[in-house]
């Protein structure tokens, strides 16, 4: 039994280590300065990079975060501070539903809502899809972090004649802020790797573009297009992109680990 359990743990961890080191190995050898500064070259020409996709991913996440993060936080506040009411249970359930919707379905939603009326793929649609995907992550972590704030602090603030809204904003939220920031980081890391909802919203772009009403490149979509191509040169570019993505995920998770550890050990 013991050996079975250890075998299971090994089986679960080995793919991670394999994927991680394979991506790192393949990515590092293909990664160079040009990757971060140069535009993609058409097939047949050596060199080039992904700067348009990197900037694109940043813009798309920025757009998504612009509305995904505030809605996520406010919903988290509502679920936590008004917990117990029927409405907050409904909202909590809906958040769970939203987090379970396949991201490709969110892509269809953004397509119908933005691409169809505009009659073209656009960064706006991609950013919108990423924003929707960020909401449940931010909501859940906001709720959890707010619930960690001792109830006595809210009472203390209310007892001073500070209104409920200001108490939440100035005292509760501020106390939970470091935890909420980690939640936002997690949401960003997740959004950075999302591919499916971008395929037919922001689409892709081999050229430099920062206009929001035009198709826009992004790292994951670029990886996908390169990965399914038959050219070795493009595969190398894709590995470099994969390495960048996996590094973002790894670093963010590490930060979250460290921050939340402090959170639990520090007494309030």
């Amino acid at each position, binding site marked *: 039994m013991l050996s079975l359990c250890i075998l299971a743990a090994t089986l679960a961890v080995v793919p991670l280590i394999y994927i991680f080191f394979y991506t790192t190995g393949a990515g590092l050898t293909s990664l160079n300065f040009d990757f971060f500064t140069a535009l993609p070259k058409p097939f047949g020409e050596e060199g080039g990079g992904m700067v348009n996709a990197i900037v694109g991913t940043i813009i798309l996440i920025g757009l998504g975060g612009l509305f995904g993060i505030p809605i996520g936080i406010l919903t988290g506040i509502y679920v936590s501070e008004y917990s117990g009411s029927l409405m907050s249970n409904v909202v909590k359930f809906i958040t769970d539903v939203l987090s379970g919707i396949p991201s490709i379905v969110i892509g269809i939603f953004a397509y119908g809502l933005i691409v169809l009326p505009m009659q073209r793929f656009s960064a706006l649609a991609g950013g919108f899809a990423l924003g929707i995907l960020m909401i449940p992550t931010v909501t859940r972590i906001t709720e959890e972090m707010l619930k960690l704030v001792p109830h006595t*602090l809210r009472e*203390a*603030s*209310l*007892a*001073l004649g*500070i*209104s409920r809204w*200001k108490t939440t904003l100035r005292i509760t939220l501020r106390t939970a802020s470091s935890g909420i920031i980690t939640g936002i980081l997690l949401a960003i890391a997740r959004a950075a790797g999302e591919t499916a909802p971008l395929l037919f919203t922001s689409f892709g772009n081999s050229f430099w573009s920062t206009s929001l009403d035009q198709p826009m490149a992004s790292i994951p979509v670029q990886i996908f297009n390169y990965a399914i191509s038959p050219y070795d040169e493009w595969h190398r570019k894709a590995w470099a992109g994969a390495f960048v993505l996996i590094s973002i995920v790894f670093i963010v998770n590490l930060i979250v680990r460290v921050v939340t550890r402090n959170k639990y050990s520090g007494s309030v």
Partner: protein
Amino acid sequence: MQEVLINTDIVAEENIPDKSKKGFVALSTEGLTVTFDSRPAISDVNISFLKNKVTSIIGPSGCGKSTLLRSFNYMHDLIPKSEVTGKITVLGKNINEYDSVGLRKKVGMVFQKPNPFPTLSVFENVIAGLKYTGNNKKSELEEICENVLKLSGLWDEVKDRLKVSALALSGGQQQRLCIARTLAVSPDIILMDEPTSALDPISTSKIEESIFHLKQNYTLIIVTHNMQQAARISDYTAYMYLGKLIELASTRKIFTSPSEKLTEEYITGKFG
């Protein structure tokens, strides 16, 4: 007003000056009942608290002391399925005439465990109640901060450390910080819910000392499980048992010749 007079009569006659009795009542209740999920925590409590006096509420745990206290500043609002019935008069006005923010500014509260705001400095903690309700004049805030820290006996210990996090203070200092924070809003009545139960004896004596000074300007209502403390600090003492007010009298009378048998049994340690 008539009822209020009757209630004051219940309060130990010997210590009440004859002149204008009604002006001396800071807070009173009539038929106060609080239920949680339709189970009563306190029922039909009639009690009065005199201005500029310290009144202690004692009784075995679960008797409703804290429930009574928390109904004086709408703290039950926070608990779902709680219901408060009966009449509460605060500073001559029915409690219904206050909104929760207005009431809590008149009736401050200090809690069992020190609960300074962890992300704020000592100074910011003291002025939190003013700042977040709209007062932003820095010089004024600094002056108030110094005054209330002096009142709570903390000024000398923290005057050079106003910018440090409130969590850097010791437990006893934190509790005095919480008292200062409550004073800063300039309430008339201060509720204290077992303010020293989480503290060591030295910190306790410092807080008791500041309570003694505070009654010149404030009305204090203190819940305590410590009978010696009630005897040391309060002018009046109320004894509660199973959600009912059993007796309210001058502290001396309660501890020397209580009129109720239940009170006597508790005081003499037969139970509780």
